[in-house]
């Protein structure tokens, strides 16, 4: 078990290095310049050169990358060009906000998605199944940022019930819930659709197996059969849940931007437009690390639930 975990963690290192090289190269290949975002348009060439030197942008790219890598190895993600704050602070705050949003939207998507998926599996072919299918298709197909804008128009602008943007500025649970409600719903739509479909098909697979027929023939109560079905489809569902949670964390750039939710997605968006390279690299590195760890956790959890999955 621990050897397996250790090997997986070692394998994560080349994955992360690869991600960081790609990010680094892409940022530098893209037109534009971080200096343009922080220096007034009319600054003199000499001032711009001096600033570039101060940030180390005058050095060859591979050198810049190695310097960055060396710092990261020591736990230093550098400083943001735009705010001059240590990147680690910006990323820490943003990650906390994104985690909260990912958790709340995943919770919503998981609970409702699993419920709808099981409902339609057990009511296969009936009206309820079709309704759930329609809902799932809508959830997967509607762009979630567009849904976010619609939610804002309805609930913030027209009805004036919930705030349109930002995280709560006052302490307490209520302001927090008010601010997180709309982004949670917007972000939950896609995983909701995906989970509903996956749960339905997983449950149907099991339902069509002979042992279920045997259980029913034995006269087992419907509730008990349901538990058996759930248990047997759990590994497949769990994989999807894990991946979806990861997507929630990394894929919320658009929703966070629409709601100005100060998470990693919003930060990433800002950093891209400002060409804030240290922030960009810091966020991506942290998110990639998260993905790797999450996948590992899901794999381990799967083997715990279903010992048939071998770990070789």
């Amino acid at each position, binding site marked *: 078990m621990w050897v397996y975990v250790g090997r997986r963690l070692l394998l994560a290192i080349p994955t992360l290095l690869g991600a960081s090289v790609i990010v680094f190269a892409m940022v530098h290949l893209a037109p*534009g310049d971080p200096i343009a975002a922080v220096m007034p348009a*009319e*600054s003199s060439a000499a001032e711009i050169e001096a600033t570039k030197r101060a940030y180390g942008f005058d050095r060859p790219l591979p050198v810049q990358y190695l310097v960055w890598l060396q710092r990261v190895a020591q736990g230093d993600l550098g400083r943001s060009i735009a705010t*001059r704050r240590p990147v680690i602070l*910006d990323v820490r705050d943003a990650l906390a906000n994104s985690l909260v949003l990912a958790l709340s939207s995943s919770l919503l998507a998981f609970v409702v998605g699993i419920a709808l998926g099981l409902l339609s599996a057990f009511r296969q072919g009936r009206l309820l199944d079709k309704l759930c299918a329609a809902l799932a298709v809508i959830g997967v197909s509607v762009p979630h940022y567009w849904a976010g804008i619609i939610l804002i128009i309805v609930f913030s602008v027209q009805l004036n019930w*919930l705030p349109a943007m930002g995280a709560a500025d006052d302490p307490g649970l209520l302001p927090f819930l008010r601010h997180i409600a709309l982004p949670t719903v917007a972000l939950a739509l896609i995983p909701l659709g995906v989970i509903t479909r996956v749960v339905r098909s997983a449950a149907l697979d099991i339902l069509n197996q002979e042992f279920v027929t045997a259980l029913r023939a034995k006269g087992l109560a419907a509730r008990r059969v349901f538990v058996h079905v759930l248990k047997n489809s759990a590994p497949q569902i769990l994989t999807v849940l894990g991946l979806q949670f990861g997507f929630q964390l990394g894929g919320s750039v658009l929703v966070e931007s629409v709601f*100005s939710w100060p998470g990693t997605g919003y930060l990433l968006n800002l950093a891209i*437009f400002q*060409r804030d390279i240290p922030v960009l690299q810091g966020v991506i590195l942290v998110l990639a690390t998260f993905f790797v760890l999450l996948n590992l956790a899901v794999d381990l959890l799967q083997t715990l639930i279903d010992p048939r999955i071998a770990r070789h």
Partner: protein
Amino acid sequence: MRALARLLLALILPLTLVAPALAQGTLRIGMTASDIPYTGGQSDNGFEGFRFVGYQIYEPLIQWDLSRADRLAALVPGLAESWEVRKDAPTKWVFKLRKGVTFHDGSPFNADAVVFTFESIKKKDAPHFDPYGSGQVGFRLASLVGVSKIDDYTVEFETNKPTSFVPYQICYMVIVSPTQWQKFKDWRKFAEQPSGTGPFKVTRFVPRERLELEANKTYWDAKRRPKIDKLVLLPMPEPTTRLAALRSGQVDWVEVPPPDSIPQLKAAGFTITRNSYPHNWTHTLRLDKEPWSNKLVRKAANYAIDRVGICKNLLNDTCIPATGVVYKGHPWFGKPKEIYEYNPNKAKDLLRQAGFDASKHPAKAVHLISTSGSGQMLPLAMNELIQKNLKDVGIDVDLQPVEWNTLLTRWRAGFKTPENEGLNAWNISWNFLEPWSGFGRFFHSKSVVPVAVNTMPYINPEADKLIDEAERTFDIGKQNEILAHVHELVVDDAPWIFVVHDQNPRALAPKVKGFVQPQSWFVDLTSVTVR
């Protein structure tokens, strides 16, 4: 299922009923900046940084009079009560400082604070040198080379040449508290707990999210003590986010609402304020290559643009037509020979005179434009209209849209780079707040890239002579007359396609009263009330 629905309702309902209680007289502003502007003194984020942060927390020695809407904002005494250039030595300026002013930390404002601030911008080896703040304003104080304390309330600035533009430079330098800096000896920490003399002081700083300020109850000018208790600044780069935040009551004031939202906002009771101010939206043309090397073609392009149509139909009256660098009524407008009205027939005639012809010798150009950006208004829609206008008279313009950051980076390098070689113009908006920004940096032969930003390049010995003369003329009235002559020359040479002047629209909730929108990039928030 029903139980679940009931549970959900029970969870959601209380959320909708309780709106957060606000302190009396809190003004919340949605800015266009994507981040909180630098709070450590010399502002970043362009003039929006000065508008909401620099000039609210801090003050310059000479400031802008922002109390009136009916005329261009003028320079008035700020932390200096008076100033004059020495008759015996025209490179030396004596400033008499205001007495009895204290910083937010309680320490007194005096000559030491002025010297300290100046050194933080200009003296690279000083322990209190602020490289970031210096990068933001250093180039605006270009001719100031030194400052010395005469006594506690008198300082003398020295310039590298006799220049009458000193007051315009001084207003970009806000005075910071040396006492507060000494507590941290670090500009980043100072920026989190800043101390100036301005009408508002910082109470809470959440990086990237919000800046909270409270009224400075002991502000030295009793007439300008803020009427509101609290000011909250929120960065909201997305126009739709600003609009939603305003309409849902999360903010009371937004900068630059989307033009097409203005009729609805008005109908819903919001106030839209606007005014002329020193802003122009232009195409800066490349003058060493066809077709824009020909003055007649440049004039043709200027007669081809339907500016009224752009302002009325596209921008809902949030701009006015531009027929020059500055607008009519501005002291530098003068009496240009050409007033560029929409006249496609005249444009076609001019093009023919210039020897261009659709079949044998077509006029073709490639223009670099941005997809968005500070002060760029609606660049894509506006440029498509301009492209159509030019096409109608026989000028084919290929628009190359790039992201704002990319446009700025490429513009800075000038036209003569491999990347920019194929271009004939760029579309960027400018300010003309003072003579250097308006004329010196663009139209003087000494400003050719890379020294400054005369990218075209515009070389006109007469313009050089007049700009230099204006700089040597210490009487503001006479200086304005000379600059008006420069303007007449530039309008006649048409090195730009003049398009529009923005009107700086902002939308205010009905409960916001008492705001006067000046003819300026900056605002006075002390007169505002929020019921």
